[in-house]
């Protein structure tokens, strides 16, 4: 199983770079886990990227899970009502 730790912010400022990072990570294995415990800021651009990662993994028939969501991440997912899509349990 591959694990990716994302640290710092997931925002419009980091979106371009993180898109490449996420796609490369998804390409790197079959059972994938992204650790969000070190994400201290998440905005709509970052959220959109998480959705993209989820959809892209599904299309590529990979197992992708988000784990260890930080509070900053959970708050935004709750607001966007995306907890079931991007939350911990699959």
């Amino acid at each position, binding site marked *: 199983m591959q694990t990716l730790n994302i640290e710092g912010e997931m*925002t419009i*400022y980091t979106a371009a770079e993180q898109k490449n990072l996420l796609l490369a990570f998804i390409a790197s294995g079959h059972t994938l886990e992204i650790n969000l415990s070190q994400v*201290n800021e998440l*905005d709509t651009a970052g959220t959109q990227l998480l959705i993209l990662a989820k959809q892209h993994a599904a299309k590529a028939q990979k197992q992708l899970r988000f784990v260890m969501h930080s509070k*900053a991440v959970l*708050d935004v997912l709750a*607001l966007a009502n995306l907890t079931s899509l991007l939350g911990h349990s699959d």
Partner: protein
Amino acid sequence: MAKTILVVDDSASVRQVVSIALKSAGYDIIEGVDGKDALTKLNGQKIHLIISDVNMPNMDGIAFVKAAKQLPAYKFTPVIMLTTESQEAKKLEGQAAGAKAWVVKPFQPAQMLAAVSKLILP
């Protein structure tokens, strides 16, 4: 993590009241006394929002916003322009420069807080 707001106005009392209101809402505040001074505060530190007056000596708000938007660290940072109802043109000019939000002077602290919370996630 408290979010940081840069408040730029040549009026000390406006800066003071805006700062008091925003600090009481949990934001960290950096102040700039005019555009030129404010640019020196854009030294790479994370700033979540810029609030800038239009009419200022040394460098006005429009020029400041244009300059700020040139900096990679602040090109996506939301900007609230402080305009007056007689400055519809300034508002448009500010929008062209990258200040997509505005608060009309005179405003009360609650109005400023409302505008800020539309732009920054808690």
